[in-house]
């Protein structure tokens, strides 16, 4: 019998996928949000976790990008 699951399809590159899987591992069993691991670049996650995932990925990218300090104003 065919089963239908409602959720959110997450498309990303393999690096970010590994990051999201790690996020999932750290959660307690009742809060895990990954419903299915589809392939290298796709994940199926719970709708409620979508925004949190997006936010965490952005923070992760921000941490790993060098930003020139803004307050150094010359000439």
């Amino acid at each position, binding site marked *: 019998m*065919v*089963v*239908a699951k409602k959720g*959110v*399809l997450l*498309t*990303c590159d393999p690096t970010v996928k590994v990051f999201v899987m790690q996020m999932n591992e750290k959660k307690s069993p009742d809060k895990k949000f990954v419903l299915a691991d589809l392939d290298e670049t796709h994940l*199926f996650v719970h709708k409620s976790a979508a925004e949190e995932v997006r936010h965490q990925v952005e923070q992760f990218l921000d941490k790993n990008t060098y930003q020139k300090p803004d307050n150094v104003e010359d000439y």
Partner: protein
Amino acid sequence: GTAGGTAGEDGKPRETCLDGRRGRGADLVCRQFFEETWMEPGRKKTGIVASNVVPGLRRVLCATGPPRSTLGLSLEWHQDIHTMDRWSKNRWESFLLYLLGAMKQPWKDEDGAEREAFKKMETLTEQAELVKVSRKEGTLTVTEKGFQFLLQQQSEQLWLLLQCCLMELAGKDEQVVTMLSLLLESSCLPPGAGGVLEQKKNEERKLLRVLSIMGLVMMETREDTLYFFTPMTALLCSGQSVQQQGAGVQGHRVVVETNFRLYAYTSSRLLVTILTMFCREVYRLPALFVGELNREAAKIAFRQGIKASQVVSFLRRYESSGNIESVLPENVVQQLFAWEDELNRVRLQDAVLYQDFTSDGALYESVLRQANESQHFLWKDGEHMQVVVALPAHRQISEFIKQSSSRGK
């Protein structure tokens, strides 16, 4: 020079007196038309001219009145084109700044009609989905479409607003035709031409009032009986050629350097407000704005709905062909696109996953075909027989599956 003449009815040659101060051109004209000339004492040159030549001669020498338009309309004429040009540019800027929320009240307190007209434009822009009006606080917030609108060419902006105007103001098709012909007529006439308001039909009058908010038409404020088309109407039919002519857009210059610094040589509040939408402000001086394109400011812009390609094409408009320093650097362009891509690192879509087709390969194939036809197909795995479809297609596909399995039974 000036010319005065007496008009008579008997067809005899008239005397026309000319003032001494005239240029060479007038001299040549005189030689053509005057049958006889002589110098009067006091430097007044007098001549006898055939009466039928007098009106044309007066026009040529005085050069203050317009020739009768080729469209056969009677025109009024506004004397001061430069003031009108400045007024119309100011008007357009105030209107856009008002939309951006940077200017609270472009109309004067005592001018009720102005206020009404501005509010009308507000409604129009709301319908065009450029702004969202919050009735309680009376504030305007710019939408995603609105931000993209602000980065477009002025001629595109004008036509978008005019489209909304026409749809809103015209009840019947004939009215649209009348209004469109008024618009096209305005762009064909020389700048400064105008007419009498009473002679126009009702819908034309409404359109003219709306156009005066945008700076395309100047109304004679004392009696509100005359209207004049400003030089801005040339933009209606010329497309982009006027603005792309090298020396920057209407006297403003924007230079972007390879270190992401942006220098705008302008005193236009509107241009500065638009630049602060996607770059960080460093210095703001009366005639110079210094900014920096950085990741933070760019990301705020992209999140608000502006695309990197729009920012790039907006900045490219200020490139001038003769000046190599004004070319937008390649590294800045690529970095803007890279920052936009960062926001798209993760794509999330509401979807449904169908699994456990268990041995029913035929059903799997037909569901796949259904999904493809409905344009909502997202992902499939043939090996494990799983399909992901976007949420809007869920009802259709689940119905289809129920029908197929009941048919199978």
